[in-house]
């Protein structure tokens, strides 16, 4: 009996396994047939003549490769909206969150069957364009893209142009100041100080925070905390440093050879020495410094405004009467001040040479950039996902964040005249975030310094070494702040930077900058 049972079980197992494998194979064939990849498959050959006879102009399903997002592209409401408005169904695949560039290169190298691809790293795009892997979109945009030419500025299109040919459709980023120093204004009131306007006043305030301990934290009191970063926004601005690359006398200069670097590092070092800067900052992760601030132990923190909604809830629970805001730009010893503005392209969408429907891609993008459609994609419908209040777009929760919160991943090219206004609806998620965004962004023009490399074209050496160079500067600055600043330590920073390929990159950057 039991032997028979065993035999039967084995046979069933074999059978089920075979069935499942067959089912997998079947799925694949069907999917291939739908996108027209395998004309030999019977399901495709049966469908094709039928559909072409019924509606000769039926629009093809476009296969897209997108950047990582947490939600599912294909079931997200925006995908359906695009289908309704443009008539094109897009089947979205997605790159992984981790090292998307590696995967993208693998896919491109092995022959992609995608109709269009979003490249988050614009340097990847330039690589493909140089290697002749992309379709020239210039004639197609000329013929089918009036809205594209209307919505995108010539400068933007020039950013996706290689050797006089437009190979991609660039999607602009909102330009904004991202980081700043949040200060506890209730602490300021308690120690009887005003909002610091200069670095001297800042030091004065920190000393008061340290000595008077307005938070009642005892030995856990931290006047000022940051992550393990070397360049602290607002403070570096007071020394005329605005990030890794700065314009000095019309030339791009890396921060490693910035004349004010030593003064800046000495200043931060002095904060550290006097016990004003968090003793543990060199090992802080962003979660650690957030912990110190939101539990009410720190008076000032370096933060991105995008973190404010989370901080706000936490700090209000721990210290119910806590109040905080970004410190406006502080003036340094030479009267300089300001913030770094981040911007540039969010992504560039391109059509691989092997794509089957380049014309349809351009037609779809053109339809998406119709001003009304674009607005619908980006913020949805008035009364459903947003309301208009004095020209401000206010989100309706939770509909807005459920249906349009990830809309930026779907847009291809921006309605450049309007998207910033639409985009601010996202900030209204939290009033504290919106107000603080305004605080660091609505400042006089001369205090805003655009990142020098924001719109840089393909710079091969920079793209290969940029990240390594940035972290070399960061590491050496942290070391100086902890160990002491001297001409030797500045020299060793420069040596490390050069050793990581800095000199060649600097040359490449300045050649490009001069030709601009």
């Amino acid at each position, binding site marked *: 009996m039991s032997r028979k049972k*065993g*035999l039967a079980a*084995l046979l069933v*197992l074999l059978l*089920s*396994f075979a069935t*499942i*494998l067959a089912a*997998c*194979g079947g*799925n*694949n064939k069907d*999917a291939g047939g739908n996108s027209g990849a*395998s004309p030999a498959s019977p399901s495709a050959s049966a469908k094709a003549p039928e559909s072409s006879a019924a509606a000769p102009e039926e629009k093809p399903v476009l296969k897209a490769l997108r950047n*990582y*997002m*947490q939600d*599912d*592209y*294909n*079931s997200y409401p925006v995908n359906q909206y695009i289908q309704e408005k443009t008539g094109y169904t897009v089947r*979205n*695949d*997605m*790159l*992984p*969150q*981790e090292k998307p560039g590696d*995967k993208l290169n*693998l*896919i491109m*190298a*092995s022959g992609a069957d995608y109709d269009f691809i979003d490249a988050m790293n614009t340097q990847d795009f330039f690589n493909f364009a140089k290697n002749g892997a992309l379709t020239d979109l210039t004639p197609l945009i000329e013929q089918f893209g009036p809205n594209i030419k209307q919505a995108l500025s010539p400068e933007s299109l020039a950013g996706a142009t290689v050797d006089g040919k437009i190979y991609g459709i660039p999607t602009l*980023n909102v330009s*904004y100041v*991202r980081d700043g120093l949040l200060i506890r204004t209730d602490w300021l009131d308690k120690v009887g100080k005003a909002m610091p306007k200069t670095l001297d006043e800042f030091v004065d305030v920190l000393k008061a925070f340290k000595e008077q301990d307005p938070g009642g934290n005892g030995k856990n009191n931290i006047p000022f905390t940051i*992550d393990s970063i070397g360049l602290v926004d607002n403070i570096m601005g007071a020394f005329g440093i605005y990030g890794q690359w700065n314009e000095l006398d019309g030339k791009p200069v890396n921060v490693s050879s910035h004349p004010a670097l030593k003064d800046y590092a000495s200043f931060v070092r002095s904060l550290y020495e006097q016990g004003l800067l968090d003793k543990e900052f060199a090992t802080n*992760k*962003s979660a*650690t410094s*957030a*912990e*110190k601030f*939101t*539990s009410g132990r720190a008076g000032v923190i370096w933060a*991105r405004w*995008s973190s404010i909604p*989370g901080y706000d*809830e*936490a700090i*209000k*629970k*721990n210290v119910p009467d806590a109040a905080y805001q970004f410190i406006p730009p502080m003036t340094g010893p030479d009267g300089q001040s300001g913030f770094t503005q981040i911007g540039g392209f*969010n992504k560039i969408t391109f059509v691989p040479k092997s794509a089957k429907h380049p014309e349809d891609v351009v037609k779809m993008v053109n339809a998406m950039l119709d001003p009304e459609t674009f607005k619908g994609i980006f913020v949805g419908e008035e009364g459903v996902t947003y309301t208009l209040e004095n020209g401000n777009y206010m989100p309706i929760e939770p509909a807005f964040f459920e249906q349009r*919160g*990830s809309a*930026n*991943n779907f847009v291809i090219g921006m309605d450049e005249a309007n998207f910033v206004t639409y985009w601010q609806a*996202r900030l209204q*998620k939290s009033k504290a975030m919106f107000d603080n965004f305004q605080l660091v962004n609505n400042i006089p023009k001369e205090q805003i310094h655009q990142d020098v490399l924001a719109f840089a074209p393909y710079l091969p050496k920079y793209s290969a070494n940029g990240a390594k160079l940035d972290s070399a500067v960061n590491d050496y600055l942290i070391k100086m702040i902890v160990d002491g600043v001297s001409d030797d330590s500045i020299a060793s920073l420069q040596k490390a930077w050069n050793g990581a390929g800095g000199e060649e990159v600097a040359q490449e950057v300045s050649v490009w900058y001069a030709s601009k």
Partner: protein
Amino acid sequence: MEHSIKRPWSEKIYIGAVYVILIGSGILCLFPFLNVLAKSLSANWAIISGKVGLLPVAFTMENVMFVLRDRLFQNAFLISVFVTVVGSLGAVLFTAVSAYPLSKKHLPGIKFILLLYIFTMLFNGGLVPTYLLIKNLHLMDNLASLILPALINVFNLLLMKNYYESLPESLEESAKLDGASNLRIVLSIVIPISAPVFATISLFYAVYFWSNWFHPMLYLNDPSLKPLQLYLRDIILQASDENLLNQDIDALLNLSPEGIRNATIIVSTIPILLVYPMLQKYFIKGILIGSVKG
């Protein structure tokens, strides 16, 4: 009446110390897990401000419920279960079927064939050729790309072959004398007495299929095919400092709260946590299988 031999004090202290140290280090290993568990049951504000240690603060089931209701999570979970179940069954079957003839040394050319298997264990094409192979077989975006290439793991195959070899030959001979066919011998004798090795190997395969994230990352672009490990990795990496620095602001605005990330880890660990203790004894046995040849 006391029959047991009294141990000297020094030995009692020694044994006691050993127990304390072992229990202590065991608990130490448990701490990070308890911390994640506590976070998954705490309110988000408490996690951000670092209040959560080993016990939840401001207890809430919201995070766990959110994860359980999340359609993407459910989908990823089912995909992982499917790949693990089908993959392990298939792999055990194929491994067992290939190992059996390889254990019969008298078959002509069997050594050469075994060498072919071992060759693939030592040398392989590498990442890009394998990727191209999968692509040209039209297995991209197909779960078979995770199962088919892993059906035979040569190491497991050798384990099985050694086990078969350790079976006394007289067992099969006697069956032959009684007139049993080769198939009959395999089905009625070899398979029933190989239960331990089957259990071990299927556990090895199941763990492999369950925790594999690299191949899905390479071969699957369709988000709806994402298995649990890939989903988990994305969620966890989201808030890494490197990611915070490089992501665009819209992605940062959509970050999932810390509590939900921790709840995702907990919920996806539980199934394998439940299976492990029951199979652990096979795991330990498995290491010894085939190590001593009779």
